[in-house]
């Protein structure tokens, strides 16, 4: 099997999950660098080149709010979930749980069928 194929499929699988992880992590206010660390600590490593454009996109869609503020003697941009973002996160989490349940059933049935 081509290793690129697996890597591409992994990336696709992670892409949607990352949005969910970022939205969930931003229920409490964070700036980019700490957000990345929080995600990494929970096993969702994300490159800065992916995270910052994603944060901007989510902000332009009205799901996040941000403000520049001084913190530890340096200006940092803090992000938090907006009211719209909270509503959408609830819906997305429900969808994700539904997908997760469906997948578990499918995988389980398949495992029973093959053993």
């Amino acid at each position, binding site marked *: 099997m081509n290793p690129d194929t697996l890597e591409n499929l992994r990336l696709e699988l992670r892409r949607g999950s990352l949005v969910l992880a970022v939205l969930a992590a931003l229920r409490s206010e964070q700036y*980019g*660098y700490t957000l990345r660390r929080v995600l990494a600590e929970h096993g969702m490593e994300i490159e*800065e080149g*992916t995270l910052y454009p994603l944060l901007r996109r989510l902000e332009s869609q009205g799901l996040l709010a941000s403000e520049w503020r001084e913190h530890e003697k*340096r200006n940092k941009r803090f992000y938090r979930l907006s009211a719209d973002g909270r509503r959408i996160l609830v819906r997305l989490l429900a969808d994700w749980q539904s997908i997760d349940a469906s997948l578990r059933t499918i995988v389980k049935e398949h495992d029973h069928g093959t053993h």
Partner: protein
Amino acid sequence: MELIDRYLQAVRFWLPRRQQDDIVAELSEDIHAQVEERQAALGRPLTDIDVEELLRRRGSPVLVASRYLPQESLIGPLLFPIYRFVIVVVTICVAGSIGLSWLVALIIRSLGIVAGRPGVANPGALWSSLWVSLFCSAGVVTLIFAILERTEAKARLPRTWNPRTLPPLRPAHLIPRSSSVIEFAVSLCLLVWWGLNMASPLTLRFGALRVALAPGWTWIFLSILVFALGNTALSAVNLMRPWWTTRRVASRLSLDALGSVIFCGLLRANIVTGVAWPGATPEQAGAAVIGVNHWLAQMFPYAIAACLVIFAVNAWRLIRVKRRSSLDAVVA
């Protein structure tokens, strides 16, 4: 830390003007936070080499900036298959028409019809015009599609689609009846004309003109008769059963191979041994014989090229039909 400032300046260059300050400020903050963390971990200030490594991991400035930009393409995924199809058709048309001109020019040159007028039949000039024409036509097509990509027409395309406008189902490897009718008529005429007019052993008469032929003519006459007979039979079968089968494509290939061998053999056979017409002197007749045989021999390379093209087309058709037959067998 001059390297970081240079890096940020390079990223800024590729960003949209309105977002430059905001993005670069955030990026700068992130890099400095990373530097501080790294320094704390190492227990010393970072060297230039450390900073260089840190920036290299982040990626080139243009790559970093590109992630903040909307994804853009000259021709999007909706129009691209149509664009590719049009490009192929245009390329074939342009190359085909110029190739034909090139062939005609070569023939005219070899016949000496335009002796002293090199501009008319200059294959070199046609060859260079092929590339210019191909680039120009591809450029025009690309430009049209790039404009379409940015107009309302593209957005309307999926909405205006109607299942009833889909083309009817085509049988696999259909032989158009029109081409079978023409082929049958031509083959039959050739067969009758050849049998009636060319059977005379070694001397042919065309009005007052008499042409004496080499002894090999008998074999050529019979071969062409067989070829015409086979062609007539095959086109008649194709007319009644208008789809290609492996056997019939193989017959087509064999017949064309036979025709190629006969035709190319005829060109190199010095087949004309004498000509006579009223008032012709022996010198004139001798010059005519040499001229005709020389002209036929000169056509030989072009005939070989044409035969190879015909052979390739038939071979490709045979492969396709065989592949389709195997697929059908698997599906069945």
